[in-house]
């Protein structure tokens, strides 16, 4: 039962991804063609509000529901992995119009082929795990 709250937040997430059309390949295509402000507005407003949130949290005003500090783990200071991994990710994102969140949400909308897309994405993550020590980071 301690997980039920995550289920409900997940529902909110799935609904907003669907109703604001973030799960649509058409919107991703439109974004990369710079033909609509929609996706930039969504990501931009989420980030602006996110920055404000993080600032308030770091001032120590907000703690977790358990009263503990909210901790942000900084990412390792590397370059290669972020740019190369980012480019590979972007190629896939534009090809199928779905990053990991939408992939799962799309199954709920009845787009069953995304079950196979998720299998393929999981294999991709597995192959990264196998090659990790050979790749430049």
């Amino acid at each position, binding site marked *: 039962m301690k997980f039920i709250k*995550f289920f409900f937040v997940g*529902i909110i997430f799935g609904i907003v991804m669907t109703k604001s059309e973030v799960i649509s390949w058409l919107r991703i295509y439109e974004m990369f063609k710079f033909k609509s402000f929609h996706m930039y507005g969504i990501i931009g407003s989420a980030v602006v509000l996110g*920055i404000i949130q993080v600032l308030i949290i770091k001032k120590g005003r907000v703690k977790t529901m358990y009263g503990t500090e909210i901790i942000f783990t900084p990412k390792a200071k*590397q370059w290669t992995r972020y740019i190369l991994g980012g480019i590979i990710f972007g190629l896939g994102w534009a090809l199928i119009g779905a990053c990991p969140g939408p992939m799962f949400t799309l199954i709920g909308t009845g787009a069953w082929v995304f079950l196979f897309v998720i299998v393929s994405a999981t294999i991709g993550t597995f192959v990264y795990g196998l090659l990790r020590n050979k790749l430049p980071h």
Partner: protein
Amino acid sequence: MLDLLKEPWPWYVGGPIIALVMFLLLYFGKNFGLSSNLRTLCSIGGAGKFSDFFRFNWKGEVWNIVFVLGAISGGFIATYYLTSPEPMQLHQDVIAEIKGFGVAVPGDELVPDELFGWEAFLTWKGFFRLMLGGFLVGFGARYAGGCTSGHAISGLSNLQIPSLIAVIGFFIGGLLMTWFLLPYFF
């Protein structure tokens, strides 16, 4: 009220709710990031036998799998109970270009059946496109250490330079695909 919810949600509703989702997860003592679930799935499937990258206590990540199950349910609710009364409002140029990829009426559904339905999946081209796309997203997200939620939303909100680099990478890859490579996949 219900009628209003059924309309497509504008960006100034969608973005703030995504920020709220991130806040709730932080408040629950967790982080907003979806792609780590793929690593968890590998680990549950026994990938730890092949790489120590998958040897971690995945039980600590079950909350995120539950979050994803919620997202699937949310997609279901939004599609079947909050069905939009009108087609998507896409840019005219986009509609024309997508028609060129073989979609009869771009925007009458969120993911065009001609490209994401079973019939498309059961062609060599469609199968290859969808499998390759999934693979690149799964591989790239882990290589970059996060995806749109982990880097673009969570990471940029925390003003992390690595996330900015990753997001720049997302756009380089996305622009290359959309402007130059995509026509070869249809």
